[in-house]
């Protein structure tokens, strides 16, 4: 009786926490894909440790429902869904591992099935099979007991990975930037790029051209330039319009991104598409620095729906009423950069060609989780 009451209050607590989190991402109080990813994984940690399930499928459904809710709270923040999918994949993997080790004959049978058959069969066919198989097992209780600490440990590892992402990306800087090079960055609100440049500056001397992606986050942009200059990097701030005139003198374009899609395309801050195109025209390599948590299994079938539009008051002041009334003002926050504009993606798992991103998607997510 007492225990049940405690459990109910605990559940209430958790629900309130989820509620608060949903409200926060709805109101954009948590901004930036890194912060969202970190907060999501921490939330999942709480959810999993509080969750009770008799079978792992119940946990999966629970998290899927939560994921759906989070994603509809901010459909354009893909990092949130990515983390959910990572955790789902983790749970599935753990449950398969225990299944394999527990049912001895299954362990003998499965290699036979997987060797050639899995190459030809799609995951969709493979998934339900496995689910029904695990349902038939019926030894849910023992599985659950074993699973929970493993899943929690996995999420913990994910959080650690998130925290160290910038470091592992930054360590590749010396391979990218040579002495006396001129670097242009069109996404000066990216902390990954900032750390990448700062870390590389310890070993190399180079010049950075900071493109202020006016009007959004211009304060952050300028602070970015300040930080670089304070660290002793030659820094020049230029406006968006000047990119073409100076691109011929640029060695590499290094950008951060909001999300990486499965085809290797990017959702980066507004202006990035134009600047990457400009770099392509000048045969300047375009390098993207991104953590794997930004990698989304989505394909850009409907680009317009992915691009968020921001405050038009930043483009045309509202005081100018007569003008604002008549004119349609647009302020897109993101740009879709096609994969052919990008030469290299540097992730915390190493550098990959954008064409290879789909493979990383397959490595980290399960196909059955693509739609939550």
């Amino acid at each position, binding site marked *: 009786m007492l225990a049940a009451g405690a459990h109910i209050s605990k559940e209430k607590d958790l629900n309130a926490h989820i509620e608060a989190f949903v409200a926060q991402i709805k109101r954009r109080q948590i901004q930036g894909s890194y912060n969202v990813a970190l907060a999501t994984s921490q939330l999942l940690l709480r959810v999993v440790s509080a969750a009770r399930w008799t079978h792992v499928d119940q946990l999966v459904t629970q998290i899927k429902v939560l994921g759906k809710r989070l994603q509809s709270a901010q459909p354009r923040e893909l990092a949130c869904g990515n983390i959910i999918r990572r955790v789902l994949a983790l749970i599935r993997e753990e449950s398969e591992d225990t299944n394999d080790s527990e049912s001895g004959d299954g362990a003998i049978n499965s290699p036979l099935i997987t060797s050639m058959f899995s190459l030809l069969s799609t995951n969709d066919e493979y998934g339900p099979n496995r689910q029904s198989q695990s349902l038939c097992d019926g030894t849910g209780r023992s599985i659950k007991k074993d699973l929970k600490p493993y899943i929690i440990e996995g999420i913990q590892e994910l959080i650690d990975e998130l925290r160290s992402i910038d470091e592992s990306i930054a360590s590749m800087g010396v391979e990218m930037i040579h002495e006396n090079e001129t670097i242009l960055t069109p996404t000066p609100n990216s902390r990954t790029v900032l750390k990448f440049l700062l870390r590389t500056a310890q070993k190399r001397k180079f*010049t950075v*051209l900071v493109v*202020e*992606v*006016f*009007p*959004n986050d*211009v*304060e952050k942009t*300028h*602070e970015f*330039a*300040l930080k*670089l*200059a*304070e660290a*002793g*990097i*030659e*820094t*020049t*701030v*230029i*406006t*968006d*319009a*000047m*990119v*073409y*005139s*100076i691109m*011929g*003198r640029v060695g590499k374009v290094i950008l951060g991104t909001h999300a990486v899609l499965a085809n290797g395309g990017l959702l980066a*801050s*507004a*202006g990035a*598409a*134009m600047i990457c*195109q*400009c770099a392509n*025209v000048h045969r300047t390599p375009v390098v993207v620095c991104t953590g794997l948590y930004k990698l989304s299994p989505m394909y850009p079938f409907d680009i317009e729906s992915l*691009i968020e539009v921001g405050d038009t008051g*930043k*483009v*045309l*002041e509202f*005081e*100018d009423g007569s*003008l604002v009334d*008549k*004119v*349609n*003002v*647009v*302020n*897109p926050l993101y*740009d*879709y950069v096609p994969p052919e504009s990008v030469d290299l993606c540097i992730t915390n798992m190493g550098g990959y060609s954008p064409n290879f991103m789909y493979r990383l998607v397959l490595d980290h997510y399960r196909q059955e989780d693509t739609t939550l």
Partner: protein
Amino acid sequence: MPELSAKVALAPLGTPTTKGQQQRGKDNNNAEAQEAKAQRKAGKAEKAARRAARVSEQGKSNKPPPEAVAPARVQSQAKQGRTVSGAGNASSGGGGSTNSVGNVTAGNAISALTTQGTAIHGTDILDKRVGLFKHLEITRRSGTADAAKDIHPAILALTLQFASYTVIGSSARCRATLRAFQTVIKDYRTPAGTTLSRNLTNHLSRQIDFLKTARPLSITMGNAIRWLKQEISVVSIDISDDQARESLMEKIETYIRDKIEVADRVIVQSAVKQISKGDVILTFSRSAVVEQVFLEANLRGIEFSVVVVDTRPFYEGKEMVRRLSNAGLRCEYVLISGLSYVLNDITSVFLGAHAVLSNGQLYSRVGTALVAMSAKRKNIPVIVCCESIKFSNRVQLDSVTFNELGSPDDLMNISIDSAPKPGPLKNWRDLPNLKLLNILYDLTPPEYIKKIVTEVGSLPPSSVPVIIREYNSA
């Protein structure tokens, strides 16, 4: 005398005299002859050129009062005039030379910031220049206290207007300069012991040198000045100074009308045919000719909409979008960072020019190249509207070798309206490694441009030297 200078910018364009008409007629004949040659060479431009000639003849016979040509522009001049008269008064109070810039720049907050910045950090700028652009000078001046005695007040006022970007755009600057020269010539008295044709050129050169301290001369101004000096050098020594001055002033009047006003009208007539119902046309920043094209198309009842792409720090497009929307046009306004977002629905791109170089490169407001590049990538035709006075003999391959530097402090200001708002970079001069780059122009390669509409016809960028040669040989 100083008041005179102030009023000149305001003065309506005079009605043509018989002499002016003859001159103009001659010019037109020349133009036709040139066109005939140009047609042979630039086969593509043939039809358009003929149309242009027809329209320009119409313009000649109908002789509409110039005021009717561009009421909007006269208004803008009136607006500018107000600021000038402020300077003029100040200079009359100060006994010939202006000491205070306050009146002129007060209206333009950004430039107030600029001039202040340069005034304080005059020497600093040398150290804070961006390596690649060290060969370019920042010549922005903040006052006229150091002006020599023989600099005409009209030139002083104009210099300040240039420095504060109150008069901006190569046609507008060219016109304002020629008007100022008219005043200079009007007030000019040949000193004893020399002739007008010898001395006036020197006198003008000193005025021009002073004008250059505000901003480098625009290509149009360079072309106009070359023409004017040529005209002065051929003034007969037999006629009296009064006659000579009178004739020169008339010639300038005619030049402005032929090379800018009539040219604009011809371009508008030709370019407006490129607009059809349902078009969504993108333009960048503000060009006076392109604006007239849109207004004319609107007057003709063509239903289309315009997307104006704008950029920091001048926000010239805001003025463009204001005028267009006041005329009832459907407009969309976006900063250049949002370009790829709006590009999907665009049917054609209209651009203005500062100059078109002999190798077909378009030298225009910085950002034009990005717009043209993005449009080309999407197979959207890019049409440049440009008077032939903007054609230059120069060749250039990139935007670095020759450009104009604006004040870096314009970048520090992150406000989008007239009230300056220094951002986090307000102390940027204290950081030795931090630089702000503000160049004003960039170079658009000819392969991005589908055609250039001029008053002598429409032509591909590769035919620019043809027109230049025809003009020079004429």
